[in-house]
């Protein structure tokens, strides 16, 4: 038979409500807490001697202090070093001190027979304990669960232990307890089954074979559990694992589906400027997306290939920690999101939220190669679209802004930079090159002249002054450029297009130099 330990009994959920009874000024851990054998009896007078054993009584302690003393003494004289009895808390202070003095560990138990059974489980009936746990797993997974967290809750309450889904990085989901970092460190992620016996941390874990994620383990944990107990929990974990893995997959499919719907909805909204149809409005409200109020948009995009869904999962988890109405979904290879305020927040508060988004960005950067843009504060449905748009522009700028940690907020940008960012887009450059091709002859000064001319409000004299040329030279070159391009620079739209094209090409040229 195995030795019974106090910690092992306390760690067992079905221990009949065991609790240690100590005097007020006791120094813990000085009393025997390992027992070799147990005796259960309804009456202390019927106990048989078991040296080093644990006595479990089925009756409450007597009321008189001296009778309690006498009981303790009788149990001690029979060689026991532990005594558990119902309403053990009624043992008086002096009697508790006597227990300490005699080296008798005193314990209160609500149900003495259950405790006796628990002792038997731990010492001799390992298979019975395992079967007990497997039955509990079966009972727990029989309940319909809404999601993984719900399933873990069921398992935790069914087993009476903390359960968690973990990987080497940390805890993905847990229920019924807190997974100590020490426990996580002590776990071996390689083998199929792993046991942690690193007092006080104890756990049994099993590898979770999931198609979408690797390195996951399902763990059942608690403090001070004995080997026999852990072995039984190991089997329970093996039995529960497929249910957890299946749930993980179902949740992921549901997630992807949900994100696709949200993403489509956002696209639809962004593409219907100024006016939101009733149907769209209804679907947005169903998602909890309010267009009323004031919004602050943000967009997170990859600086390389990223898994937008994985990114969104982390973003959502982090956003849920912020005390504000927030939304996010994938859109076009990144994540778009926004914070909604009931009324316009005062500037310091706004700064706090921007700082929170910066914090989110910092957290994401640890795992993803990303850039984040934040829009300006805008109100109403039109404002929501606008701030998300601005955030998108800011994000594009942020990609190349290593100086700001790839985090850019529109409010801090010059309009020019914004324009530039837009005009630097990869689709624009080839168009600009095609438009201005006639001016791009090597050695030609026409591009510089046209740029300067447009920058100086299409006025010849200031252009000439800026370039250090004669007015006639400038007028001549402009006329020639118009001729080559076949465009009329008096037309405002033409003028804008040409100016943007000039700007794009000249900055690119500067960049190359």
């Amino acid at each position, binding site marked *: 038979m195995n030795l019974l330990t106090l910690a092992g009994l306390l760690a067992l959920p079905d221990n009949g409500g065991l609790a240690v009874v100590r005097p007020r000024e006791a120094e813990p851990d000085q009393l025997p807490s390992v027992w070799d054998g147990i005796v259960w009896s309804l009456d202390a007078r019927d106990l048989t001697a078991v040296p080093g054993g644990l006595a479990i009584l089925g009756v409450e302690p007597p009321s*008189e*202090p001296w009778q309690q*003393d*006498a009981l303790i003494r*009788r149990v001690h004289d029979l060689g026991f070093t532990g005594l558990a009895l119902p309403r053990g808390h009624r043992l*008086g*202070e002096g009697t508790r001190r*006597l227990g300490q003095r005699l080296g008798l560990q005193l314990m209160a138990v609500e149900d003495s027979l259950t405790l006796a059974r628990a002792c038997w489980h731990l010492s001799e009936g390992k298979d019975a304990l395992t079967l007990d746990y497997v039955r509990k797993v079966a009972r727990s997974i029989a309940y319909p669960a809404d999601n993984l967290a719900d399933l873990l809750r069921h398992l935790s309450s069914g087993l009476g232990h903390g359960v968690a889904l973990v990987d080497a990085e940390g805890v993905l989901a847990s229920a019924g307890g807190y997974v100590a970092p020490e426990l996580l460190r002590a776990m071996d992620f390689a083998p199929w089954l792993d046991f942690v016996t690193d007092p006080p941390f104890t756990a049994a874990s099993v590898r979770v074979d999931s198609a979408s994620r690797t390195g996951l383990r399902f763990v059942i944990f608690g403090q001070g559990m004995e080997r026999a107990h852990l072995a039984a929990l190991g089997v329970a974990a093996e039995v529960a694992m497929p249910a957890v893995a299946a749930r993980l997959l179902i949740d992921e499919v549901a997630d992807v589906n949900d994100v696709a719907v949200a993403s489509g909805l956002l696209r639809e909204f962004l593409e219907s400027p100024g006016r939101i149809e009733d149907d769209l409005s209804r679907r947005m409200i169903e998602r909890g997306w309010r267009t009323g109020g004031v919004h602050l948009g943000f967009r997170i995009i990859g600086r390389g290939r990223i898994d937008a869904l994985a990114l969104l999962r982390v973003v959502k988890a982090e956003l849920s920690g912020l005390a504000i109405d927030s939304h996010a979904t994938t859109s076009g290879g990144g994540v778009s999101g926004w914070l909604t305020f009931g009324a316009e927040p005062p500037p310091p508060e706004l700064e706090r939220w921007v700082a929170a988004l910066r914090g989110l960005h910092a957290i994401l950067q640890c795992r993803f190669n990303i850039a984040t843009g934040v829009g300006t504060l805008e109100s109403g449905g039109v404002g929501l679209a606008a701030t998300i748009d601005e955030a998108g522009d800011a994000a594009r700028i942020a990609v190349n802004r290593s100086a700001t940690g790839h985090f850019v907020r529109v409010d801090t940008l010059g309009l020019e930079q914004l324009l530039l960012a837009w005009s630097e887009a990869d689709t624009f450059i080839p168009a600009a090159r095609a438009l201005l091709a006639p001016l791009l002859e090597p050695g030609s000064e026409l591009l510089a002249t046209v740029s300067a001319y447009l920058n100086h409000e299409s006025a010849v004299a200031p252009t000439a002054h800026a370039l250090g040329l004669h007015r006639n030279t400038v007028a001549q070159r402009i006329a020639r450029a118009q001729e080559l391009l076949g465009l009329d620079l008096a037309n405002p739209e033409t003028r804008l297009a040409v100016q943007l094209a000039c700007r794009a090409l000249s900055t690119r040229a500067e960049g190359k130099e």
Partner: protein
Amino acid sequence: MPATLGVDDLAALARGFSLLGSGGGGRTAILESVVRRTVSWPVALHESEGLDPSTPCVAVGIAGSTYLLAERLPRVEAFERLLAAAHRWTGTAPGAVCAIEGAGLNGLTPLLLTGGLRFVDADFMGRALPGLDQMSLIVDAVPGVVCAASTGDQGITLVESPVRGDVEQIVRSALVQAGGANEVLVAGFTVGDLREHAIGGTVSRALSLGRAFEATGPGAASRLAHDLGVSLLGVGRVVDVAERSATSASSIEVAGDDGAILRLVAGSEFVMLLRDGAVIAEVPDIIVAVDSISRDILEVDALTPPRHVTLLGIPAPAWWRAREARLRAVDTRAFGLTEPRRA
């Protein structure tokens, strides 16, 4: 040849009776001063063997609340009324007097009547006991014994009954009627009965214990026990008192200087002493608590935290253990305590 008690012996005698009180029996101080003034000293103390066995005898004492006894003056005239009543009932005039209880203030009570009666060195308990049924004459069921008790002011009740429990019940109601304490007189027996059915020599025992106690100087508890020729049961500080209730005795926890947990179980006297859960002294043996510093002999209610006490054990009079029936009347079972016997 009778021994002689001088007025100088009174203090030692009172100390001795206090020791035999085992935490009860009432304080002796008031009766001590009354006796000092009213008795014509010296007083002859007769052994029961030294008197004609046919001499009719009476035993006297005061029953009731020890608190009340501490402040109520004993009334000699009440005893005279009881004597007259017993005389009328038995038809014989007594020639000798003894105590019903050779402990506490009752040890001194017979001295009030030594003006006309010879003082016999015998009593019915040999220590303090709470019940009138625990008087040795009643325990041995001596026929013809009558018990007279005052019911307050001029009233008297007299019981003669072979039924066990009658004396206790009826005198107890008289005592309630009298306001909590009353005078009790037992008659209908002779000095010869005392030889067989009473505890002899308690006055002498009290006197020698008292003298030794008075003579002992300051010093360790073991020294006190040695000087008294009694056993030392424990020394320690009172840390907790679970008060006596209708259903339970009081339980006094003493944290022993040696780390032991001493538990005194007490009614109106100390009944039992447990050391670390094991019984080391119990009725009818006498357990005495003495204040370790002042050397006051303590009554049960004086044991309160954080008093430091020395606990002594004095063997019970051998009379109680001579027969099983006698022991049954005064051992722990008689006090409603059924738990463990001494190992």
